[in-house]
């Protein structure tokens, strides 16, 4: 996909926000050339700390900087943050409620070249289980950029999970955006597709295909996984009577699970989850074919919509 990558947009937005807010400091774990925190580092070397390949230490140093009154953005690969550094994130960011912004890069299977060790398909499940954590999964480059000042101005723990790759663009630069609020990208009457991250653009394409088949599908972009916009989820479920979730993540514990928790308690509704079906992935030559191979294709979303419509009947 030739679109501007999410990490590119994030790197530029971090630099722009850091120019405005002098309390911003940035950390990385030897991945600044990958996460593109390097854009900030090159301009403000005195406010940048490279901690090397030591993610738990990087998180703790960020915690200390926050305790000292600064606003640290700590960058690394999501797989390593969610697994290797999770003790520091749980205890020293969430439990101690320190004002650290974790930017979990290379999420999902976007690091298609490096395989399952670098793919991060359980991170949403892990981060959203942590009390006090706010979890953001932007849909595209513009949205990732727009979230940077929003999370920077919030007081408290935030994780923003972003992709290495470009995604189908959905978010306009001047569009309104709030932490904790979903966005109805397309109204529908037959079914609602609720998606996050790279799957929002794919869901929009799916809705166009479904329209040709006479199915009126709505699409909700849900960039805040926690706190979840339960009101919007219930509203669209009540309106359409059928829901499909779509995420570049395992179907266990992610967006689909979060939506199912809400609907199960408040608005029981036929639903299907599109995601990676509890399996390790593989490497591929590009991210799109890898996503397609692991159940994240537009065809797969279409199939899930057709299945859920049968349940609705």
């Amino acid at each position, binding site marked *: 996909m030739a679109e501007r990558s999410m990490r590119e947009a994030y790197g530029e937005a971090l630099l722009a926000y850091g120019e405005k807010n002098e309390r911003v400091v940035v950390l990385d774990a030897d991945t600044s050339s990958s996460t593109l925190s390097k854009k900030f580092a090159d301009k403000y070397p005195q406010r940048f*700390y490279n901690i090397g390949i030591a993610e738990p230490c990087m998180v703790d140093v960020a915690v200390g900087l926050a305790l*000292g009154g*600064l606003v640290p953005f700590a960058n690394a690969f999501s797989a390593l943050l969610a697994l290797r550094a999770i003790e520091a994130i749980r*205890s020293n960011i969430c439990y101690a409620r320190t004002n650290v912004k974790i930017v979990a890069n290379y999420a999902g299977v976007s690091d298609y070249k490096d395989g399952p060790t670098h793919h991060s398909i359980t991170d949403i499940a892990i981060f959203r289980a942590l009390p006090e954590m706010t979890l953001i999964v932007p849909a595209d480059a513009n949205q990732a950029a727009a979230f940077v000042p929003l999370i920077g101005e919030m007081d408290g723990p935030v994780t923003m999970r972003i992709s290495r790759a470009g995604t189908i663009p959905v978010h306009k630069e001047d569009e309104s955006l709030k932490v904790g609020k979903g966005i109805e990208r397309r109204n529908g009457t037959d079914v609602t597709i609720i998606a996050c991250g790279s799957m929002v653009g794919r869901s929009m394409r799916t809705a166009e295909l479904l329209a040709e088949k006479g199915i009126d599908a709505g699409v909700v972009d849900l960039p805040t996984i926690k706190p979840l916009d339960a009101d919007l989820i219930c509203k669209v479920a009540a309106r359409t009577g059928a829901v499909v979730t779509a995420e570049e993540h395992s179907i266990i514990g992610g967006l689909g699970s979060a939506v199912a928790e809400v609907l199960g308690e408040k608005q029981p509704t036929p639903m299907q989850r599109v995601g990676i079906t509890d399996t390790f992935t593989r490497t591929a030559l590009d991210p799109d074919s890898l996503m397609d191979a692991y159940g994240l294709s537009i065809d797969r979303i279409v199939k899930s919509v057709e299945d859920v419509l049968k349940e609705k009947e």
Partner: protein
Amino acid sequence: MENLTEAEIKKLNEISRELRCTSLRMIHKRQAGHPGGSLSAAEIVAILYFKIMNIDPHNPNWEERDRFLLSKGHASALLYAALAKRGYFPESDLEHWGELDCHLQGHPDRLKTPGVDMNSGILGHGISIGAGIALAAGQKGMNYHVYTLLGDGECQAGLVWEGANTAAKFHLSNLTTIVDHNGVQLDGFVQEVMPIEPLAEKWKAFGWHVIEVNGHDIAQLYKALMEAKQIKDKPTIILACTIKGKGVSFMENKAYWHGVAPNDEQLAQALNELGEEI
């Protein structure tokens, strides 16, 4: 550098003794806690809170205060005893340690207890967090000093050495780490569970200024802590040789007393040995 007067040494020794007695009473009352590592670190905590640190109990969040991170969070009884004695909260609160609605949690919690600079309990994090606080002083142009107290068993954790690298890379001379080097951990002697020696050589190799002292000798601790303040290009580590369970004959050097509360009889004997009039 001025030495402590005999009167100051006497006063700090008496405070250490009181902190030992208070810690044991708290652990006895709650029938939970960690006596061994609280007794071994009494002089270290006493000299920091009652002589060295620039703090204000009436303004616990004062931005320019010195910080203390109890990386070995298990010695929370000792920390709480010191904070109460220093005036951060009433000493009567100590009786409610660990109760559901008490601000004194099993392990330190900065959001609940006035004077606690950071949560701890899971081992290994103190140096890395301390490095961040020390870096923040540089960003803000402040002169505060960060102290962190580690256990020697804690030095088995890989994260300790990630922090060691980091503090040395950034020349954090405003970060001083003290190791309560009592040689005993939960499962036995440190050198048997997982050898860590030669500790001094390891810290030197990591680029730290290393000072070795008797951790129960107030004068030596004072000299080391003042020396640490003079070092300008690197962090300092004070390897404080201590005795686990110090001051109570049946607890000394016994792994059993790492995390077991004394019964009524044992408490009475312990307090008696510590010179407490009952």
